[in-house]
């Protein structure tokens, strides 16, 4: 079904089903917007064996057909060069099954983006792409589910992703995606293709793919993707990773067999191609905290997790909260390049089995050195100034415990005075 044209607006489409859209989309929609799309079921068909039309991976035919919902791309931007911005789209309660190629995509040109997009309660299964948004702004996606999203090798090496955000701004995403399953294509009809191809097995590739976006909030459960669960712009040869805020909260499970897992998370590309700011929180992989090392140095070393070159210079700072260790560490400096920054931490130490020994300690150091404890607040109510040598460059009011004299001393702006 096609509803489009540059002046199309104020369309309510509901309670409908679509199937059998051969090489086209089940629904093409475009215009100036104000579209409500709700309560839809659409189904294509994916064949895993060849027939008289040839390789099922390369062409739609009698056994493989049906693209999903397309707002803005295939029958709009290329057909109407003056197509306007698309505004106010509400997609709600949609099931998309067995889609050859994409399931839902809203792809707009740079000069005419889509704005104010709400996607809620969408279920996608067995497709080569899940949701693909490009040049979308002010997007809120909730209750999204993409399962069995496979890389359709012969069509494009870029598919096989559940969610893709490209050139998007101000996106809030809350969803689930799972790869894991595989499909093997076979060629029983030996008269169609010469030479007869060997069977091809395709896998899930990316859970969430992001490039050239700004201000994204991602909350996701990601499972079983072969190449990477969440990737931020390593495929696209573009130095500009865009400024902006990125918040990632994800729980992911690693797929272990039969495929080889390449990377778990990837943020940025190199020392010069990196994100401006990034916050990662509440993230687990295989039920383990994602961030345990306050130096973040393991990002490059651990093949399951890469987060390269996150700038930490003032005033940009990264807050890492490690729930297992009860530690909050503050950074001020660039740990990846100069090792010249400083850091401070507040750490808690749990009580023993009879309730003794609980305390909160305060530590500081340069980033290149281990954290050194300077002050402790005990659960008994007492405080402890950790014995140390006389601090350099004191200010009036500074207090420390002198390890040489075993005296508590206070600096009055001129000299250190014993307090007892």
């Amino acid at each position, binding site marked *: 079904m096609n509803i489009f044209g540059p002046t199309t607006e104020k369309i309510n489409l509901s309670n409908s089903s679509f199937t059998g*859209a*051969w090489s086209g989309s089940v629904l093409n929609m475009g215009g100036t917007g104000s579209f409500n799309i709700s309560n839809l079921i659409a189904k294509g068909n994916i064949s895993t064996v060849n027939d008289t039309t040839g390789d099922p991976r390369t062409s739609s035919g009698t056994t493989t*057909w049906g693209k999903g919902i397309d707002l803005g791309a295939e029958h709009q931007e290329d057909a109407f060069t003056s197509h306007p911005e698309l505004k106010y789209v509400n997609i709600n309660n949609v099931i998309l099954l067995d889609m050859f190629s994409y399931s839902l995509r809203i792809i707009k040109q740079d000069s005419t983006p889509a704005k104010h997009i709400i996607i809620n309660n969408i279920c996608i299964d067995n497709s080569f792409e899940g949701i693909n948004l490009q040049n979308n702004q002010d997007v809120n996606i909730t209750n999204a589910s993409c399962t069995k999203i496979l890389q359709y090798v012969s069509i494009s090496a870029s598919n096989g992703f559940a969610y893709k955000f490209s050139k998007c701004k101000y996106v809030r995403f809350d969803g689930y995606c799972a790869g894991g399953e595989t499909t093997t294509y076979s060629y029983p009809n030996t008269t169609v293709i010469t030479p007869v191809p060997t069977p091809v097995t395709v896998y899930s590739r990316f859970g969430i793919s992001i490039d050239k976006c700004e201000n994204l909030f991602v909350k996701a459960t990601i499972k079983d993707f072969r190449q990477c669960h969440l990737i931020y712009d390593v495929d696209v040869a573009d130095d500009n990773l865009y400024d902006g805020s990125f918040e990632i909260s994800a729980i992911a499970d690693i797929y272990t067999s039969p495929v080889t897992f390449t990377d778990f998370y990837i943020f940025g590309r190199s020392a010069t191609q990196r994100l401006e700011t990034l916050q990662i929180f509440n993230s687990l992989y295989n039920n383990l905290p994602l961030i345990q090392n306050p130096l973040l140095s393991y990002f490059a070393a651990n093949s399951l997790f890469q987060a390269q070159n996150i700038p930490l210079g003032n005033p940009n700072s990264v807050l890492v909260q490690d729930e297992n260790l009860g530690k909050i560490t503050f950074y001020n400096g660039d740990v990846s390049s100069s090792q010249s920054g400083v850091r401070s931490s507040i750490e808690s130490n749990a009580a023993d089995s009879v309730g003794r020994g609980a305390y909160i300690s305060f530590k500081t150091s340069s980033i290149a050195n281990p954290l050194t404890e300077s002050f402790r607040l005990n659960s008994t109510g007492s405080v402890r100034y950790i014995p140390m040598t006389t601090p350099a460059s004191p200010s009036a009011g500074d207090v420390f415990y002198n390890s040489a004299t075993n005296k508590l001393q206070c600096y009055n702006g001129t000299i250190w005075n014993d307090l007892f």
Partner: protein
Amino acid sequence: MSLIKSNAVQIGQSPTATQNFTLAVPSSPDGTIKLARGNAGATTQDVISVDASGNINGLVKSTGSTTARSLANRFADVVNVKDFGAVGDWNGTTGTDNSIAWANFLAFLNTSGKIGFIPEGKYYIPTAPGTVVNPVTSSIPQLTNYGNIVIYGEGEKLTTLVAKKEIISPGINPASRAILKIVSCESFSLSDITLDGGFTSNPATLSGWADKDAAALLEVRNCDNVKFNNVTTKGFYGHRDNSDNNNGNFGRSGPILIANCTNGIASNLRINTLLGEKEYSFSIVRTSQ
């Protein structure tokens, strides 16, 4: 019985004139006859008449209602496509060509503003109504500048409009043709009906090429207030016309094309392009509008 040679015959001898009836023809006979209440020669009230064409005009009162209306007036409340000669006899292979009846039906809906009804049947419409506006870009006839068009069927299972399958060039599989293209109407509403592209199996793949014959089964363009409800499409097979993007020919690769319209409501649709209902059959939750 003796032959009565009179323009009027009174039946009944009641002293109350309204209890008597008069059977009369005009003083200058024109082929009509009427039965009226009252005495011959007096002012009478027509009960029923038959005109020269054999049409019966009389008053009836619907059960439970209060006011009697003429049959002609009563029947005109909803315009029935069969009143324009349409026959729903398509058997999957052959059937009556309803193209002219379909065009006249739509033309009357335009001029009258009345609601159109298509009763049970499969109506074959091989040629869409209207005229070809720009033969360079599209050979699809179209209706232009119509008023408010409202059409409903007896239900998706009972009322079907069947398009023509046409071979568009030698060696190419046939494609479905248009049932209706309507442009710049004030409003358009279609409900409780099936649009059938005529195919029962999936032909080989057709891709896009320059073809001014490319058609959707139904195309509504430049229209304010478009409404589809309880509409099924099936058996459609089309292809892209990639020669004229700006006229939306791309969209004619699908069974329904709604282009440059505003205030649209489409609900309870079953868009089954190729395989009819046999491949993916499930019930639609119907909602009131």
